[in-house]
């Protein structure tokens, strides 16, 4: 059991939790994730290691409330424990030897992007951050990003925070102004990453994306997280989650992410399973 030592609501749908998991805290690197299960009949859900404290043995996760599993997780309070918490999984992000990088985070993807921005900053990279949100209420991690970036821009769909517009508008503006990046790292909704990649391809800037397909085991056993990269089959949990964005088949990934959409919609009412108790 993994004890929750801190819980903070970052906005109406995003929560930060700090969990006791010393072995994972000791090993975790930016870009890696954990898989957790909050109760006996619960689903295994992947969440990025947003931060860690090696000394105190703590791991931070930041999650958006999207469906049943994240809601059940959110029912847990400080002092409660998470049933299963496994990691660190996946390949750490590549953060060495880069002079100038632009980190683009969209929505809750900012939680995934933050540790990477921090690792780059700590490595002496000049970090530009562009975050994007639908509106002011959904903004997260502003202070955190400010502390680990040299230039920071925030965009919102309605202009209630930062500038009105999309992250791609800002990125294009910077590129057009002659900014040179060794790499763009884009993390957010699939559609956002797809459009960032289309843009950076025109400017011939290397782009890394963090793919978040549906997962179960996270060890390469089920193949549920597979995607096509350069027309080859890759497993995001062991080969990724970071991939060269110009080689990812986004349309396929978008279709695959909707595989269980019907089920998830019904899961909140819990009425769609096969067997009822009596026939078991």
């Amino acid at each position, binding site marked *: 059991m993994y004890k929750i030592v801190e819980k903070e609501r970052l906005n109406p749908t995003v929560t930060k939790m700090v969990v006791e998991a010393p072995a994972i805290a000791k090993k975790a690197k930016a870009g890696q994730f954990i898989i957790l299960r909050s109760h006996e009949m619960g689903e295994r859900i992947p969440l990025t290691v947003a931060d860690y404290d090696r000394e105190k043995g703590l791991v931070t996760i930041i999650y958006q409330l999207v469906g049943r599993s994240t809601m059940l997780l959110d029912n847990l309070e400080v002092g409660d424990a998470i049933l299963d918490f496994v990691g660190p999984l996946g390949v750490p992000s590549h953060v060495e030897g880069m002079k100038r990088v632009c980190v683009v985070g969209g929505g809750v993807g900012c939680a995934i992007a933050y540790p990477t921005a921090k690792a780059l900053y700590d490595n002496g990279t000049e970090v530009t951050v562009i975050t994007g949100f639908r509106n002011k209420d959904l903004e997260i991690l502003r202070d955190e990003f400010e502390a680990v970036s040299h230039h920071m821009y925030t965009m919102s769909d309605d202009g209630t925070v930062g500038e009105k517009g999309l992250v791609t508008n800002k990125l294009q503006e910077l590129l057009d102004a002659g900014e040179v990046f060794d790499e763009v790292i884009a993390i957010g909704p699939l559609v956002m990453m797809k459009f960032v990649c289309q843009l950076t391809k025109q400017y011939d800037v290397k782009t890394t994306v963090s793919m978040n397909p549906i997962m179960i085991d996270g060890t390469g056993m089920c193949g549920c997280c597979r995607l096509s990269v350069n027309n080859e089959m890759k497993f995001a949990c062991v080969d990724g989650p970071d991939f060269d964005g110009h080689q990812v088949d986004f349309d396929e990934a978008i279709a*695959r992410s909707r595989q269980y959409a019907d089920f998830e919609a019904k899961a909140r009412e819990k009425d769609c399973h096969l067997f009822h108790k009596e026939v078991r």
Partner: protein
Amino acid sequence: MPNMSPNKVPMPHQEPNVRNKNVAEVATGYTLEMAQEEADRCLQCKHKPCVNGCPVGVQIPEFIALIKEGDIEGAYDKIKETNALPAVCGRVCPQEDQCEKLCVRAIKHEAVGIGRLERFVADYHMANGENKIPTIEKNGHKVAVVGAGPAGLTCAGDLAKKGYEVTVYEALHKAGGVLEYGIPEFRLPKAIVSKEVQALKDLGVHMETNMVIGKVFDIDELFEDENEAVFIGSGAGLPNFMKIPGENLNGVFSANEFLTRFNLMKAYDVEADTPIFKGKKVAVVGGGNVAMDAARCAKRLGAEVYIVYRRGTEELPARKEEVEHAMEEGIIFKTLNNPVQVLGDDKGNVSAIECVEMELGEPDESGRRRPVVKEGSNFTLDIDCMIMSIGTSPNPLIHRTTEGLDTNKWGCLIADPKTGATTREGVFAGGDAVTGAATVILAMGAGKEAAQAMDDYIQNK
């Protein structure tokens, strides 16, 4: 006078049309009377041919004699001397290719139902017997086991009995390996697996779940943690795909994914949060035990199910009993057919597979007749779900993170077939991680031999 009936005492089963709608066990097991009647069919041969067919050397005539005498606990102890998991083996061993194949009664008629008797004894013990927890004197040495499948569990149990302090590290949240995530409830109830795992804990084995070795610790760190030897029983969990167009369409699953959702995550249960795709028409590609299990799970979710296999019915590698059970349950066998591409609709969902017919040519290296494509025989089969059961390979996670641990060209760890010693000192391995996908009892045998070799290694250091 022994019972000279040519046939085994029939195993009671749930009716096919009832059981294909629930997950309760298919074969319900012998009663004491049935077991004793079957035990009477054993001729108590002096030269015990059957024992040579058992990879772990269960003392078959001896335990059967104890059943006849009515000493079921005695029979249980006898089996346990060499087999750590009788309730499991009695259910899933391919007995027809092992112990029962060499039974003298099999020359003319049906073999003695050794597996059924083994299962009976184990179940009887679980229901009525007492678990004697032996007092073990610790020998002061520490060892680690990676993977809680049959290989790792057997190795851990043997080492614990010898007095070692044993820690098992398992990647998933539950111990059992394929017994837990692969083989379905209706063939091997999970309560049995849990009891076997509990019995190991009672012996003092530390069971650390949620530990992916190679990620949270690597093998070097296990040695730094004062373990004197390490056993790797990480299985062969990496699913193979066919590399044909359309495999990433929605509705196409690896058997591992489908079975893990069904078994480990209990997706058939109304209380479980994990979703599973309930196809209307499901094609399962492959002909082994895994394919039969996937097909029968899909059937239980309400689908019309096809097994698509490129060789003939005779060549199906699955256990005969499982093929028969699948046929009884209404699975449709499309043998001598092979998919060449998966077709999808505009939403990215699978809508059909294109197959070719096959015919059997000359025998290949494996001795089986090689399937050859019948030119121009392409046809399409409308489906909404496809499950790939065409084999698995060992997971590369551990050897990639461990220096000096060599693998062969199939990714299997190289290990001495007698001792399990790998190319790295102090590291032993066995089970599917070494052989590629095989059987429960072979994995157990490898775990057992490695435990002995690890003991020798540590004691002679």
